[in-house]
Each structure stands twice: as structure tokens, then as C-alpha cells.
């Protein structure tokens, strides 16, 4: 078990994300209270905690959507807070973000949704190369037959898959999943969990998966970080994290997973 108060020594070659002593507040509400976490390259780390506890804030700080009040976030060897807009955008191309709501562009069909990041960021790609990339990534998420449909025509699980495909099309080195199984039935959740593991293997990504779903955590995590009251109380393998007498951690396990 790691002690979350002792940050890892940064080695840019091995660690995809290093978070040190991170604080974030919204008005009077302190959400992050000194968070420390490292994600090794090729590793899936699941951040587990109650809904509304501020887990998503953490990954939004990692991609620069929110600014931390204090602390350091290093992604692929670059300190996010010190980057210029141009540098931050270059970094964002290497980090995929799958939103809880999928955040598909509802005025575009699925093909256009997937083409859009490529057209905007890979100006040298030919039309043929873009079509090929879209076909490939849709094949990877198993939804090639949906490419001409609108997002509103898809189910929740399909929307999640397309959301993941849209981030994968830029071939990211890191994937950040925000509640990937929230609101999905158990079978669709299982498929999404399987997809997260396939993405890790196929695209060799490092991932942070934000969830309150213990099944998702168990199936996808190399390590689990238990987020309680603004900081990580336990980090380690799934079984190690829940092998504790800590009431808050035990109750989360008991009421969420196997009572």
C-alpha cells in the first residue's frame, strides 16, 4: 500500500501523470485537499469515491479545464499550470477525455463527430486518410454501422463508445474516463469495462478512470485510489484497498458491491 502523503519521485520516463499536493476550492467548498497520485505508463488507475465528491475536478485539472488553487500536476513530463495555450493544446492532443455525458456534438452525425477533431488538428491528413481513421476507430469500438446516425439516435452505451472513439481517433497516450459506466445497465457496463481494457492494450494508453462503480473498478483497475473527503485515503490493488477496517472504505464496499 502506498501512503498518499508521500509523493513518488518523478521519473518522466515511467510516469504518465504525477499529481503533488493538489488543492481546489469552489467558493466555500474545498473539493481537493492535498491530493497526491502517480499513474505509471500503461497503467489503469481507478479513482473511486462517492458521487459529487469532486473526483471529476481532478481530471479536469489534469487537462487544464480547471485551474488548481495550489499544487502541481505533471502530465507526460510537462507541468500543466506553466504551459502556454499552444503548449497546452499540444499536450491535450496526447490526452483523451471521455465525458460522463459523452458530450457528442449533437448537430453532427457520428462520422462528422469523429472527423471533427482530425480536421481541426491534423490539417495535413487527406480525406482518404480521415475516412480510414474513422472506419478503424469505429471498428475498434464495434459501432461501424452507426456512422451515419445522429447522436440522439444512439443508446447511452453507444454514445459512451462513440465518445471514447472520438478521443481515440487522435491516438492519445493517456485516457481520462469520467464515470464511464454511470447510468448504464450491467450488461452495457460490462461491455464498456471490456472496451476500457481493450483500449489499454490496443492503444497502449495510461488511464485514470473516475467512477463510483465497484464492478468497473474491479474489472479495469491495475490500482485503485480511494477518494474520501478531498484526498486519497488508500491506494493500491483492489483487494488491498478494501482489506481495511476503515469504516468509510468498508461501507463503500458493503453498500455498493457485495453486501
Amino acid at each position, binding site marked *: 500500500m502506498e501512503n498518499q502523503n508521500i509523493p513518488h519521485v518523478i521519473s518522466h520516463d515511467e510516469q504518465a501523470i504525477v499529481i503533488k499536493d493538489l488543492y481546489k476550492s469552489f467558493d*466555500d467548498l474545498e473539493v481537493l485537499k492535498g491530493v497526491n497520485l502517480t499513474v505509471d505508463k500503461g497503467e489503469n488507475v481507478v479513482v473511486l469515491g462517492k458521487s459529487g465528491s469532486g473526483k471529476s475536478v481532478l481530471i479536469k485539472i489534469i487537462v487544464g479545464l480547471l485551474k488548481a488553487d495550489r499544487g502541481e500536476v505533471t502530465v507526460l513530463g510537462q507541468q500543466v499550470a506553466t504551459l502556454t495555450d499552444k503548449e497546452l*493544446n*499540444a499536450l491535450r492532443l496526447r490526452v483523451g477525455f471521455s465525458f460522463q455525458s459523452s*458530450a457528442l456534438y449533437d448537430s453532427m452525425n457520428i462520422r462528422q463527430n469523429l472527423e471533427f477533431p482530425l480536421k481541426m488538428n491534423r490539417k495535413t491528413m487527406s480525406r482518404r486518410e480521415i475516412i480510414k481513421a474513422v472506419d478503424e476507430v469505429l471498428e475498434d469500438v464495434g459501432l461501424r454501422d452507426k456512422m451515419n446516425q445522429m447522436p440522439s439516435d444512439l443508446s447511452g452505451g453507444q454514445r459512451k463508445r462513440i465518445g471514447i472513439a472520438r478521443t481515440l481517433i487522435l491516438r492519445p497516450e493517456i485516457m481520462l474516463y469520467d464515470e464511464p459506466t454511470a447510468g448504464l445497465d450491467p450488461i452495457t457496463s460490462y461491455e464498456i469495462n471490456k472496451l476500457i481494457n481493450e483500449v489499454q492494450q490496443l492503444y497502449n494508453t495510461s488511464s485514470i478512470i473516475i467512477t463510483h462503480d465497484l464492478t468497473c473498478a474491479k474489472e479495469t483497475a491495475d490500482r485503485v485510489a480511494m477518494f474520501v473527503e478531498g484526498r486519497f485515503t488508500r491506494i493500491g490493488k483492489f483487494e488491498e484497498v478494501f482489506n481495511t477496517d476503515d469504516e468509510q472504505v468498508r461501507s463503500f464496499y458493503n453498500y455498493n458491491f457485495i453486501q
Partner: protein
Amino acid sequence: MINIRTKKYVISKVLDAFFISVNRAYLFVIQFFKQVLVPPFHFSEIVNQCFEIGLRALSLITLTGFIIGIVFTKQSRPSLEDFGATSWLPSLIGIAIVKALGPLVTALICAGKVGSGIGAELGSMRVTEQIDAMEVSAINPFKYLVVTRVTATMITIPILSFYCIVVGLLGSYVNVRAEEATSFIAFFQSAFSTLHFLDLSTSVVKALIFGFTIGIVGSYKGFYATKGTQGVGKAANQAVVMAMFLIFIEEVVIVQVSNWIRYF
């Protein structure tokens, strides 16, 4: 560690919030001027938005412009008849529609149809995290969504304004023709006889400024929408109210400035 619970307001919570929002609006406008001349320009999206805006407002502008032409002519005729000056009717209509009613009516219709549409669209994109999705894909949402829409309103509203003037004058001609034997050419010659270059250029500048106002207010309200679907409705509503309020203020200022120029 900073204890945020002891945070003090500079004046008061409400006034601080007001000045912060004014500053944010100011920075939003500055941001537009900074980005509008810098590539990439997203021409296809601008053209797309021009069509969207034009199509959204065209039918209403046609109807309103035509009716205004007829009604204004009908209402002006008895007063002019009292002074035996009905021959001045086309000139009066020309001045009223070209200098004031055309751009103003177009702007008010577009504030309702287009401004609310932009506010609701961007607001919906904000609350469903589509704007965040653009940002994390290294796409500048301000450039792609705001700059294109404001540019499109600045192009389209002067064109719609010109169209409204033409339709309004046609409406007026229909009414005049029903009362007396005036040719189409004679009516238009008379309508434009008292108008000068300054009047026409003021009208164009006015439409351009109204276009900017509608685009920027709608975009600003939508871009910073919060609190879910309720926030989207609020953004659309505020976009219309704020744009109309600013349009009336701008109308007064522009008329005053154009009069200063005229007598300079």
C-alpha cells in the same frame, strides 16, 4: 493554506458579482477582436452560419418589412393631405425606412430569432459539456463557435437590413399605387431623392453594429450558461433582452453622432 471561509468582498457580494460580470463581458469582446483577424478563419462555418441566420429570419423580415411599408404609408397619408403635401409621401417613407425602420426592425427581429438561437445553442453546448469536449480536443471553442457566429451576424444583418428596406418600400409602393397613379421608377426616385450618402452609410454602419451586438450578446450569454436546461432558457431569454436594450441605446447614439457629422 488560505482559509477561503474568511474571504472578504471588495464592496458587497452583489456589486462584486456585477463588476466581475462587466469585466468578463469586456474581456469577451476584446477576445473577439483579438481572434477575428488571426487564422484559422473557419470560412465554411461562417458561410454555414450566414445561411442559418438568413434562413431563420428571412420570412419574418419579409412579412414585417412589407406590413411596415403599408401601415406607415397609410398612417402618414392623412397628415400629409392636411398640408397638401402627399407628393412628399415617398420621400417621407424613404427617410423613415432607410434611416431608421429598416435596420432597427431587422435588428429587433434578429435579436429575437437569431440572438436567442445562438444563446440557446451555445448554452446547450456548454451544459452538455460539448464546449469542454472541443477544448480538450485542442480545438479553440471561442474561435470556432463565437467568432464564426459574430462574423456571420455582422455579414448577414446588413444584408437582411437592405432586404427589409427594399421590401418595406415595395409595401409602401403597393399602398401608394392603390391610391394614385405613380410609376414604380418615379416612386423609388422620389423615395431616394432626399437621402444622402451619409444617410445610407449610417444605415449600413448601424446594421453592422446591430449585427455585432446580436452575435456577441447571444454568444456571451450562451458561452457562460450554467445550471442545466434552466440555464439554457435563461441564456436565450437574456440574449434577447440584453441585445434589444443595447440596440435601442446604439440607435440613439448613432443618430446623434450622424447628426453631429451632418452639421460639422
